[in-house]
């Protein structure tokens, strides 16, 4: 294994190893500057202000005391929910635009969580909008709600597509309920979810032909259209232009595929100008390997080594057909990457020291992060058998180089040893100052859940616990 050597020669900052041998008191290596929660908070405030601004036209356009009948009141509530829904839809699409700024400020994991929460809220708001307007209009015209549906569909422009959009949205929302989503094949779910762009398109028209605040040419209408254009621009930028620029710039190719254990491989990648690649250990890319059979699939994998200016590496456990195909990648294969993204990095720490808990192949982002954490970190590595321990030589080397304590905890979840250790008391014994550390967790869902519970009981504040999750 030549890895430690190559890494040392490619090192960016002054450690003594370049001059031969390690000195007794190692020079503190470079640690990325902390990125506070400022960006996230700013964005949260901006989005809230936007929400208020979306409802403002209604507030200004409705004179006080004008809602004096039930019908008018219900219709007004329908308008408010309509404006809110229109706005939330745009936020929702923005969250998934993979705009680099968003990825940097709140990270892929958080955006995904926001996307899920806003999505559920959006669906409820749209349904409320529809029912309120229907009831309000039906009351005004003295007809039943069903007859009103007929009137809207028959006599109103753009209402058919608006109803279709609602239907699509219900379908997408329904298929995203966790239990149902698990039962669906991923490809089908993905296709359904892609159809949400239809909602944007189909729901567009009726807002401007019938929206009481939007049908009139004026600043409100112009602003609303501008908002739409901005979101579409963000989508184009984040999904098309930024990845294109990234890949044209760095031109990644497979350099080598190495077996790490019986069922785990590392893929080494080279490219151009990698010295300028701003990437932090613990971040991930969405990878697309451009060979027959693989090019149409894009999967998120963490890099398993920090940026070194010369190569990238992903370490992947072979679990499905796609990952099995990756074993046969030829050197020189072109790779399309989107990223880097994620806030599972040393830069997002809140404290000076960290505790890292990895399970199985969850070690990969943590391995990369170890190179950038301040000295004094602690690592607990859970694995079922000694053969499941990955990258152990690198970990041992990093433990020395970065003054990190590493514990390998081997055994099944129900063995007494691991059980004792992964309890609040066990954690406190192992790491007495655990409550004053950032905790980075990456591993199978069971381990993550169990650890979070134990950590919370051991007194670690929620915001100091960082999770690496690609899925919702």
């Amino acid at each position, binding site marked *: 294994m030549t890895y430690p050597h190559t890494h040392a020669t490619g090192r960016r900052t002054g450690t003594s190893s370049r001059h031969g041998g390690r000195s007794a008191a190692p020079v503190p290596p470079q640690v990325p500057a902390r990125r506070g929660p400022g960006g996230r908070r700013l964005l949260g405030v901006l989005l809230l202000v936007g929400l208020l601004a979306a409802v403002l036209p209604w507030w200004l356009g409705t004179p006080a005391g004008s809602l004096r009948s039930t019908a008018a009141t219900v219709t007004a509530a329908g308008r408010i929910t309509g404006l*809110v829904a229109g706005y939330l839809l745009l936020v929702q699409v923005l969250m998934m635009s993979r705009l680099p700024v968003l990825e940097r400020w709140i990270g892929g994991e958080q955006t995904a969580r926001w996307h899920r*929460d806003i999505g559920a809220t959006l669906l409820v708001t749209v349904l409320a909008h529809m029912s309120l307007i229907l009831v309000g209009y039906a009351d005004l015209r003295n007809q039943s709600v069903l007859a009103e549906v007929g009137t809207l569909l028959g006599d109103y422009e753009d209402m058919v597509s608006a109803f279709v959009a609602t239907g699509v949205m219900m379908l997408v929302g329904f298929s995203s309920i966790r239990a149902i989503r698990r039962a669906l094949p991923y490809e089908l779910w993905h296709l359904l979810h892609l159809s949400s762009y239809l909602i944007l398109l189909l729901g567009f028209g009726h807002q401007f032909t019938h929206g009481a605040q939007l049908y009139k040419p004026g600043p409100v209408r112009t602003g609303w259209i501008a908002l739409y254009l901005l979101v579409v621009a963000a989508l184009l930028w984040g999904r098309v232009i930024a990845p294109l620029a990234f890949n044209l710039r760095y031109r990644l190719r497979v350099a080598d595929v190495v077996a790490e254990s019986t069922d785990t491989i590392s893929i080494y990648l080279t490219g151009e100008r990698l010295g300028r690649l701003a990437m932090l250990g613990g971040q991930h890319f969405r990878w697309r390997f451009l060979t027959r059979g693989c090019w149409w699939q894009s999967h998120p994998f963490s890099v398993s080594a920090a940026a070194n200016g010369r190569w990238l590496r992903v370490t992947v456990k072979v679990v499905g057909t796609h990952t099995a195909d990756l074993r046969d990648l030829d050197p020189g294969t072109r790779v399309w990457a989107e990223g880097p993204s994620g806030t599972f990095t040393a830069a997002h720490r809140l404290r000076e020291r960290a505790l890292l808990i990895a399970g199985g192949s969850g070690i990969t982002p943590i391995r990369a992060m170890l190179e950038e954490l301040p000295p004094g970190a602690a690592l607990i590595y859970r694995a079922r058998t000694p053969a499941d321990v990955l990258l152990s030589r690198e970990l041992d080397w990093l433990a020395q180089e970065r003054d990190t304590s590493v514990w390998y905890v081997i055994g099944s979840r129900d063995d007494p040893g691991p059980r004792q250790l992964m309890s609040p008391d066990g954690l406190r014994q192992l790491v007495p100052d655990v409550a004053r550390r950032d905790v980075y967790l990456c591993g199978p869902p069971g381990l993550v859940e169990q650890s979070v519970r134990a950590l919370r009981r051991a007194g670690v504040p929620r915001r100091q616990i960082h999770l690496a999750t690609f899925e919702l």
Partner: protein
Amino acid sequence: MRRVFLAITGLAASTTALVVFKGSPAATQVAQNLPTAQPVNPTPQEVEPSADPNAPGTDPADGEPTPSKSADSPVSPKPGKTTARPSTTKTTKAPSAPRTTKAPQPTTRRVTGNGFDNEYGYVQVQIVVSGNRIVEAVALSLPSGGESDIHSGDVRDRYDGSGGEVVQKQNANLNTVSGATETSNSYKQSLRSAIEQAI
């Protein structure tokens, strides 16, 4: 999931709050106002005693006219072709007696004009008369759909409200809105009939 519930509850609460705030100058008056609110209700002709909660405080003093321009809300579910039309046949002349009896404050009345059809749709106007003055005009119905929405919006912007052309001119000789000749004419006809009833 908890955040979703919080968000939905928050939205529902703030929507209700907004509607209630706008609902009436004071929330407690909502109930009292309800009976007079139906725009198609024939009763508006009747003299509203100045016990009308809005009248005493806000009316002439603040320059904020009482029943305010409710134009926006009740009208816009634009009646389509198939819709049952608000009937105006029942409208009768408002009794004129109370006007003279209530001395200190001018009485406020709502008078609905006859509805008129034109090739684009149905037009009906309601005015609010305080004493001998028109203080507000509201189009209860205007042609809708497609381009008509825009023209109807123009008509509404020009004529309606407490500062519109109707209130400025105090008669039905309004300038025609360009691009919306038919609708302007129907508006004037309906307004004329409302003024006749109010006298």
